């Protein structure tokens, strides 16, 4: 009767050879899984990590200043600076260029600040209109009406040697970095 607890205790404390190798095997597999997991996770999230510190953004030429008459807003297109071989036409990006005067420009993203649909410029009424949910913007990109909570996204630009260049490379979305490069403007109304 009294030997039973002693036996039980010794069975708990003493690890058998087989049990030891089982545990070692599990540990070994855990190690292998960790070694494989690091590159797998790195691969899965590679599209994010590259973006750190504006990794995708570069300066892209839009064309000569002379191609954009003063006081007008015209459509321009550029090839996205970060391209993959299978991108096809999807890497061609449109944008609206407003030449205010001299070297003063505004370059708007095509994407509505609401949900990203392509806005169209109507020169006669001086408005950008979105075909999706009816967002409308004034000529300076500020919000006029509809669901957008802010004005159009603007690309940073510079004019050098008569050529207009913008910093682009990311799809502008309400929460993405490029959207934060410009502050919301007060309505011109």
């Amino acid at each position, binding site marked *: 009767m009294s030997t039973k607890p002693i036996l039980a205790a010794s069975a708990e404390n003493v690890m058998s050879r087989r049990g030891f190798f089982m545990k070692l095997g599990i540990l070994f597999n855990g190690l292998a899984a960790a070694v494989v997991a690091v590159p797998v996770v790195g691969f899965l999230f590679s*599209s994010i990590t590259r973006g750190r510190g504006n990794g995708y953004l570069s300066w892209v030429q839009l064309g000569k200043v002379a191609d954009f008459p003063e006081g007008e807003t015209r459509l321009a297109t550029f090839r996205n600076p970060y391209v993959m071989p299978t991108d096809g036409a*999807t890497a061609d990006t449109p944008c609206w260029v407003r030449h205010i005067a001299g070297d003063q420009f505004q370059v708007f993203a095509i994407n509505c600040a609401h949900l990203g649909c392509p806005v169209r410029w109507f020169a006669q009424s001086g408005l950008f209109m979105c075909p999706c949910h*009816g967002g409308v913007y004034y000529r300076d990109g500020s919000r006029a009406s509809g669901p957008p909570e802010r004005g159009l996204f603007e690309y940073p630009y510079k004019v050098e040697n008569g050529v207009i260049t913008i910093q682009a490379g990311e799809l502008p979305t309400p929460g993405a970095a490029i959207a934060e490069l410009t502050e919301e403007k007060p309505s011109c*109304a």
Partner: protein
Amino acid sequence: MRLKTQLINIGEWFDRRLQIAAPIREAAEHPIPRNTSSWWYVFGSAAMTVFILQIVTGILLAFVYVPSGAEAWSSLQALNHSITLGWFIRAMHGWGSNFMVAIVLIHMVQVFLFGAYKFPRELTWILGVFLLLMTLGMAFTGQVLRFDQDAYWGLGIGASIASRVPVLGPAIVKLMLGGPIIAGATLSRFFALHVFVIPGLLIGFVCLHVLMVLRLGINEWPMPGRIVKRATYISEYHELVKKDGAPFFSYGAWKDMFFAAFIILAVAACAYYFGPFGPTGRPDPTIIQTVPKPDYFFLWLYALLSLLPPSLETPALLIGPVIVIGVLIFLPFLSGEGEKSWKRRPIAVLTVLMIAITLGTFTHLAGFTPWSPHMNAWSGDPVPVKFIHGTTALERQGALVFQVKQCRNCHSLGETGGQRGPALDSVAVRLTQDQLIRQVIQGGGNMPAYGKNLSPAETTALVAFLETLHPKGQAPARDASRDVALKDDKPSGSQP
């Protein structure tokens, strides 16, 4: 006769090694309560049938489809026009997807109204919720694989929604798009999701879901007053099956088989008569003359995003799904016992009706999108003759201003034009001259201000035209105080 015995021998040779005939027979002949042999109980098997159809047609499409941003669109054109019956397989897959979403939803409503999610089938319901989410995931990723303009801008909308997640938003967008923009990498990962990840999960979950139905038994026909109690239900169910049960095959199965065949024929008929979906224009973002629209089952979301007040949109988009999915998952724990019959569950019935009416109304509205400006109305829809008949030169000039300044894109005249703003057929009855001028120049109430884009002469002409817009025999609105004010002004004569 000799052939038959030979076949039986071959069958037995295999089964001695595979050992699966007995479990299959056991599953097929598991007893079901007699009253569940009903046409209400066919939707689960119909959903699985359409899923199998989707797998078959999907594999066939993958023989030709090229998941490359540069070539996907052309490969779909080849399927539609160059490859024998490619159009039909595409149409079957597209219509199969519509049918699958619809049948899964009907199945869910039936299960909910019959109280089948209650004890002990909670986990079957929860797996069903995940199956619904995966079905919707398949529908969305499938729409992306039809790599056309709608798919391209639909991804933009998805990215814009995802970007609103606090802090993690931009990272989620890049993870979703596979890079900084919607491009080849985006299509590739949606292909992997649509063809490997989600179907793999779906197959696994469907197997578990069906296994649980077999193990726990099909939900009995709900009787008003027969209350589910955790302590007694299982023994009551076994009693019922023992007393009034019959083997599923073929007591209940024949209705499933009939309905499954009917659904396959219905998908094929729709595919034959209506043809494949798209693709619409090339996924070239520089073609901006486009009006993107989601597929049928997401139209309600399209409507919701137009009608919500802007300030509520982000919270609704981010918190709404969490609440809806949370409620669905916790439902069997909130009401795991009690009445099963819809006759004694008025709130359940009203909830289903309310959700159905809401989704139906939103879908109907999204069919004609009254919130979207008609981008070509200003140049395409003429001012109806009756509105300019007998008008002065100034008023006609105003009608021109009305068209040229794109007012028509949002305001209809004679039932053509945009519906974003109110129809202006009788605007002069509603607004006085002063109010019209103020509205045009300052905007407001969701209308842009035109002050900077109209010369004083244009405003005068436009308002003169708008003042003519009232029905015959109904006088235009006027400011009554004005007459008094002008009368009072006269004797003094000092004011200009």
